[in-house]
């Protein structure tokens, strides 16, 4: 390992109102090193990187690159010094081609022509050197999220970045894409680039980083070499107390509450679900695991009542039902946690109480008039019962953090003790403390006799919560296996579509 220091952040502090987002943070980065910046949401990771990149001016402290001080608050100076930023939400234009996106901002605004051929040559060269394959002429909007991220990285490299900062790079990626990304990052470090990546996922931090820096409440609380620490220690450092994800205890499942037989959903001429079979019993968790994009979103929509089926039967509490509507689902005691809480689970600009009662307005209205008082009371009950912090019933739900919003969504479903809970990626994007809280609630519902259908792509989550597991691949569901009988490797194979030899239906 070379020891040449390329980046030095010293004694940086930044205050927003009453909130000290960065408190005297010092951090250095060596050439060819990968440093992970680990911390929960709100720990100050993104603020620190924004200071580095010149988006914010620090109150005190300074940043220097290659021994030269960087003028504060000047993103252009940061780019020129060789800092490249890969944002969590990409700053790319979907209607331009890859090449156009990469070249945007690199040329003089006043020059009449654009030196496209030189740009193309440079882009192809970079993409070959770092193994970042991409078609320069593809329209960005047509690319997958993983490919778009590759373009964002290429754009930074095109600007001759020697220090690359990645803000939660895997938040939007599938597991497979994430693995590809990390091997690319290691390649880049081997070629002399220095990398900082921000994350709150322990696995990827342990697997990829040379050094791990933990932020908590704006302070740098610990620095560890990857070899000298463990996931448990990091989790504790990050949260500030011991967190353990809960594990399910043994139970005897009750009768079948929901059954699907040969259910097919076709849209746009493609079978999104193909002859899917499953049985869900009271008091058990059935995990549906799969790489995202394999039909689990469609399955969730179907059971949420937002789309209809093309063929097959759904049997609810022993009675055949046609297509479920949202109103049917709510009336029948099916709790629903959507995969994307910001898009489907909440109306950001509406009050917390309105979000709490929106799907059950008939219950909270009389003769078409909304019973505001009862709604506010209902929301308060959820806030108290599910430890939702950061808002009152009348404040807008957008003000809640991801974890608290998810607790509210859980609460509005679980508070009425549903017979069935449909949970799609319930812990996605949450920090460690919130994940534990969500899992605890799901297991609590299971103990109370709720049948839980858990859709997830997180192996750990499924293995911790589910009694039985089925894999979903290309819209087809595998037969179910008992969670006790499988290990991660077997599940990995099932997620790849290899389940023929694992058949023993329950």
């Amino acid at each position, binding site marked *: 390992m070379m020891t040449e220091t390329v980046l030095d952040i010293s004694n940086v502090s930044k205050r*927003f109102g009453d909130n000290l987002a960065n408190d005297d943070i010092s951090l250095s980065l060596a050439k060819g090193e990968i440093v992970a910046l680990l911390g929960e949401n709100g720990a100050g990771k993104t603020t620190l990187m924004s200071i580095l990149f010149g*988006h*914010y*001016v620090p109150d005190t402290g300074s940043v220097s690159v290659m021994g030269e001080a960087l003028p504060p608050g000047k993103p252009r100076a940061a780019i020129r010094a060789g800092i490249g930023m890969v944002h969590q939400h990409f700053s790319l234009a979907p209607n331009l081609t890859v090449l156009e996106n990469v070249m945007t901002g690199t040329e003089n605004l006043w020059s009449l022509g654009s030196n496209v051929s030189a740009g193309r040559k440079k882009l192809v060269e970079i993409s070959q050197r770092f193994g970042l394959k991409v078609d320069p002429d593809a329209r960005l909007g047509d690319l997958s999220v993983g490919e778009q991220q590759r373009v964002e990285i290429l754009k930074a490299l095109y600007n001759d970045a020697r220090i690359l900062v990645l803000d939660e790079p895997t938040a939007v990626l599938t597991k497979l894409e994430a693995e590809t990304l990390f091997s690319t990052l290691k390649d880049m470090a081997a070629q002399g680039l220095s990398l900082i990546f921000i994350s709150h996922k322990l696995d990827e931090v342990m697997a990829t980083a040379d050094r791990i820096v933990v932020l908590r409440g704006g302070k740098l609380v610990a620095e560890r070499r990857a070899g000298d620490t463990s996931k448990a220690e990091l989790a504790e450092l990050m949260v500030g107390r011991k967190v353990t994800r809960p594990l399910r205890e043994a139970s005897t499942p009750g009768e079948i509450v929901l059954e699907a037989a040969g259910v097919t959903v076709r849209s746009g001429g493609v079978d999104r679900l193909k002859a899917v079979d499953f049985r869900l019993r009271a008091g058990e968790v059935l995990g549906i695991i799969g790489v995202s994009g394999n039909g689990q979103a469609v399955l969730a929509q179907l059971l*949420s*009542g*937002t789309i209809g089926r093309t063929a097959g039967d759904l049997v609810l509490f022993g009675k055949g039902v046609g297509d479920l*509507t*949202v*109103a049917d689902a*709510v009336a029948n005691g099916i709790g*629903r946690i*959507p995969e994307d809480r910001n*898009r*489907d*689970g*909440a*109306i*950001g*600009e*509406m009050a917390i109480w*309105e979000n709490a009662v*929106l*799907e059950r*307005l*008939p219950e909270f*209205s009389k003769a*078409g*008039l*909304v019973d*505001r008082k009862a709604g506010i009371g209902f929301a308060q009950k959820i806030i108290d019962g599910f430890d939702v912090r950061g808002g009152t019933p009348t*404040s807008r739900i957008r*003000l809640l953090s991801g974890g608290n919003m998810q607790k509210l969504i859980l609460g509005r479903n679980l508070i009425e003790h549903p017979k069935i809970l449909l949970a799609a990626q319930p812990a996605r994007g949450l920090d460690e403390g919130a994940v534990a809280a969500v899992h605890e609630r799901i297991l609590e519902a299971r103990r109370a006799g709720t049948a839980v259908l858990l859709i997830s792509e997180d192996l750990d989550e499924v293995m911790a919560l589910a009694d039985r597991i089925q894999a979903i691949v290309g819209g087809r569901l595998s037969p179910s296996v008992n969670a006790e009988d499988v290990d991660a490797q077997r599940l990995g194979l099932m997620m790849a579509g290899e389940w023929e030899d694992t058949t023993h239906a329950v």
Partner: protein
Amino acid sequence: MRFERREHRSTLLVIATPILAVVAALAIAGVLIALAGAPVFQAYWKILTSAFGSRLSATETLTRASPLILTGLAAAVAFRARLWNIGGEGQFYLGAIAASAASVHLFAGLPSLLQIPLLFAVGAVAGMVLLLVPLSLRLRFSVDEVVTTLLLNFVALLFVSMLIDGVLKDPAAFGWPQSEAVDAAARLPKLLARSRLHIGLGIAVVIAFLIYFVQTRTVFGVQSRAAGLNPSGAVFAGVPLGRTLVIVAMISGGLAGLAGTIEVLGVKGYVTTDLSPGYGYSGIVVAMLANLNPLGVVLAALFTATMFVGADGMSRSMGIPTYIADVTVALSLLSMLVAVFFTQYRIRR
């Protein structure tokens, strides 16, 4: 300098916003008045006295405000649900011509108490129909309703122009293209004798309160707000998106059609192609000025009417072009948009 979302909006801020916006607009317009060579404060005083200085001018301003309240509500209701109804002008004219034709050819002779409500219904339905066409195109084929509703304005105006120069032409109008005058029983009662002010103002204000109530208190109001703010979230919560939009469109188109009906029954009694000095379009401005709040629409309509009526008088006595009214209203809209932005964001260094 960066912008940061405000977490809380105080009531004071929400109330102060439009006032500050109007003050800012008046200040900027003042520069233009000064450039035109007139004393600024005197000019503004003149606008105020021309709009409210006499019984005649005050009633005239209120008469102008009545259709603006209704077209403003039409826009506000639709925009709340993210239905971009730019077709208020066309719906206004279609409502007016339908009601006047119905009065002449269908309901002539019916007593006022029966005829006027019937004509209101006819005018509102005409406005609805004109908006339901582009809405069904949007729901069925995702056609952008901004374009269709905007262009239908011209179709509607030309259609009306064809009717009043053709089948509905008044034979006693010395060849002028205008429709036959409505039945005497169809004329709206005056609010004040010896003025043009009619009960349309009262109706418009009552409707504004009604809409406010519907939007804040009813299931439909909450659902249509959800549909406008986040369609996929609304669908997940079981809000019938298409049906909600259809009802919103019926209310919006109906209000614009009603505005035309009330204008023709209340003021002129017959339809010409200059029945509206752009009430439909001004309604959009009024709605934006009011930040889509139905009660704010009443005040915004009053302000806009004041500017238009007042600027007429000011220009006559001070020799400044009446365009200053358009400029001031346009500036108010712009400063309102900026002000609304600042109620949602704050500046951070």
